[in-house]
């Protein structure tokens, strides 16, 4: 089976692209993450992640319109590919498996004496 590797930030980006569905491009992704997760995202970090994800084949892109506030530069819209979908699903499944494996006691520290 293919080994899906997703970093934490990459996963966040993937998911956000999914959330934004048809309107995921640099600025909107950045805003979305910042709003939802309450963390700042630098353009550099985001672009690197997007490039890496696209290189891995998890995202695909198309060129969009250039608006006035972008000084005519085109937007680059991202979409999750089939492979990308499997990658986040795989990641989610792994997490869930891990959640399930945690003993009840571990999540109730009060019971454990210091």
């Amino acid at each position: 089976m293919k080994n899906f590797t997703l970093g934490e930030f990459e996963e966040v980006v993937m998911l956000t692209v999914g959330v934004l569905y048809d309107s995921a491009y640099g600025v909107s992704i950045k805003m979305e993450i910042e709003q939802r997760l309450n963390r700042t995202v630098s353009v550099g970090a985001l672009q690197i992640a997007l490039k890496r994800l696209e290189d891995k084949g998890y995202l695909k892109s198309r060129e969009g319109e250039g608006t006035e506030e972008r000084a005519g530069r085109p937007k680059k819209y991202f979409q999750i590919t089939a492979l990308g979908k499997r990658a986040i699903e795989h990641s989610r499944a792994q997490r869930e498996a891990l959640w399930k494996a945690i003993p009840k006691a571990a999540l109730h520290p009060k019971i454990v004496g210091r």
Partner: protein
Amino acid sequence: MATHSNHPPQLFLRFFRWFCHPELRRHIEGDLVELYHLQRVRAGKRKADIRFAIDVMLLFRPGIIGPIKSDVNLNHYGMLKSYFITSWRTITKNKGFAAINVFGLAIGLAACLLILQFVIFELSFDTFHSKLDRTYRVTNDRFQNGKLIQHGTITYPTIGPVMARDYPEIEDYVRIMPGGTLNVRIDDKNFRGDDSYFTDQNFFTVFDFKLLAGDRKTLLKDPYTAVLTESTARKYFSPDSNNLSTLIGKTFYWGLDPQPYEVKGIVSNPPANSHFQFAALISYSTVTTTDKDADISWTWSDMYHYLVLKPGTDPKSLEKKFEDFSERYFKGDKVTGSIEKFYLQPMRKTHLYSDYEYDFAVTASGKAVWAMVIVAVFILVIAWINYVNLTTSRAMERAKEVGLRKVMGAFKSQLVSQFILESLLITGAAALIAIILVTSLQPSFNQLVGTGLTWNLLVENLTTQQVAIIIAGLVGGALIAGMYPAFILSRYQPVMVLKGKFARSATGNFFRKSLVIFQFTASAALITGTLIVTRQIEFMNKAELGFGLNNIVVVRSPELLAYDSTFITRVEDFKEALKQFSSVTNATTSWRIPGDRLGRAFNIRIDGQPAETHYTVSHVGVDYDYFKTMGVRVIAGRPFLPSDHHANFEKLNTIIINKNAMHLFGFANPDDALGRDVLWGNDGTRKWKIIGVVNDYHQEGLQKPMEPMLFRPAYSPGSPISIKVQGANIDQTLAGIEGIYKKFFPGNSFEYFFLESQYKRQYQDDNRFGKVITIFTVLAMIVASLGMIGLSSYTALQRTKEIGIRKVLGASVSNIVSILSFGFIKLVLIAALFSLPIAYYFMNEWLQGYAYRINLGWLLFALPVIIVVLIAAVTIFFQVLKAALTKPAETLKYE
């Protein structure tokens, strides 16, 4: 409306554009700008700016940064490749013109490189001495009756030490006194002919000759000790090992001196670029032990002095103090009979700027060296002008290409770089050919000119400053030559050119014409120069010398013949035996032979003249056969007779003078002089009766004037024997002479030379200069003609339609040839006329270096003009004739 302040910080934006990978650039930039605007609305300009800057900086990371070779460079590379291809196509399309261009430049560069080797070597003289800039030679001018009578480098032994004592600015000094040739005996082997010099212990602190063996502290200290050069030492002792220190302490005998000389040191051979060449140095104390005068005399002037001044000393102000010095020690002309003036000659100038009498330095004419530099520059400029002319004259052809390129969006700078690349290609090819040419022609050039030039010599002796000048000159010239056509060609307006409304500019034409004029002015001036130089050399070689130079064999004196009461008889017996040969007509012995610089006497007058009268004359001792053997005419009185000679020098009392001396002494005609007494020696009391007057003859080459001369009937050891021979079989005669010599002087080595070749050595430098300037003039002319061929054929090509129409209207071939050539011939004629005053000025200057010189007749100036015009006419003629013979139907059928 967007104002300026609406933009994100341009610096950072530009930085981003520069580093960002081209694939990512557009949409990331879009994101950045969009974010910037959002940020501005939300937080204001300042915050937005800062945020933008931070974002850009954070984007500067691998993955975003583009490849190191930016796309700008990538595109340039592609363009360069295209330029290269088009350049190559243009070159191959016009093979003839490319060849003319490349070969013209190659010849020019090759000539330049050869000259450069020569010039750099000449300029490198003595630069290996570390104190060069502080070292000066003392030169000594002597005046009598207000006239300069000697302009020398030799002076009195006291000068160096006394000056060093009197003037604290002198740090060090050294005396050098010629010791003549060494006749060395080691066991049973004889060696002779090596130049030796007596010199002070300071020799090795003043100069930087490299010591190979020996203790610096004891060198040249004790009497009868010597320092030999490596090659002399190897010749004398043929050591087995390479360890030269084994030779220290060896001894040799010099001539008849019973005292052995001990070798105390070995010095490496003086470099070829040293003005002072020697085979052996002998301690100065050797002279002073036998003759105290060598330390204290104020009249014995055979010594050369070198002074090292303390750093920062102004030589001019020291020189001024020498007037006092002269007055203090020479008291006007009381001491030596002449007014003594002393000067400092920088050692740096010894090789190229010395015109002194009695100079032992290897000298060359600085003027000739700089003349060569001018020639080199001329040739190179002529070659570059060819390039410029040929390229711009093809403007018509290239104009369409330029127009089309411009329409397709080429910038002017791109066109310029295209043409510069083209010229770099041609220059590069030319440089390559030039280097090959120089390397392959160097041996024959060296042989012809008598030099030993190599690339190594050039590389070793170049100073960084010279390298900078040369590179700046070559690269700068190549760039200008490439740049001009590039700018001319790239200037055309595409609309004009493509419409066909293209006219050659009048200024361009004028410029091209001036360049042609310059080329031919330079060539014509060089031709005039060559003509005059070769004529002067021919004149000197063929001049009537006043004596017979031919068929005289000179045998060096037997080195082991001591001067005693039997000396004269033994020499006379030898001469008598020689004369028994049918092929020997006469033989004579004399102190010096024609071609040698004679000694001078400064304190001479005629008996009866006032005591303060001083005359200076050259003098020589000769035997009674001298005038007959040399063919010098006695015009009054009689030649010497055997009875005039005496083994005891003090008993001689007859003298013969030449015509110049007769005039100097104030006699109107020879008969007045006969029987009068010359006062010379013993403080002006010794009398010499004038028994004869001889014709003036050229004792020295024609560069020097004929001087007043005195002849005394004196023999001396070391006098060469001159033998007048006749008949065809010279080898047999020489063998016979050698046999007799061996019989009379056993144990001595037999060495001979021909007087004529020895005498003509005085013209060696002139001959060399003549050959060199001829070679380079021919080269310059070839290059200029190549340019002419190219230019005239292109002009003819451009005027084909005109020619066609003219022919249709009835012009004859000769008409057309004259129409086409007239323009060029006119230019060449103007150029030739321009060259006349230039050539006259420089050649007149050059001829001033010769006491006897040719007249600058009008023919010498008319001839070059004719030659240049003729050469140009012939070159043009064939190009033009081809155009004139083309049938009009062929050229006009496309209209």
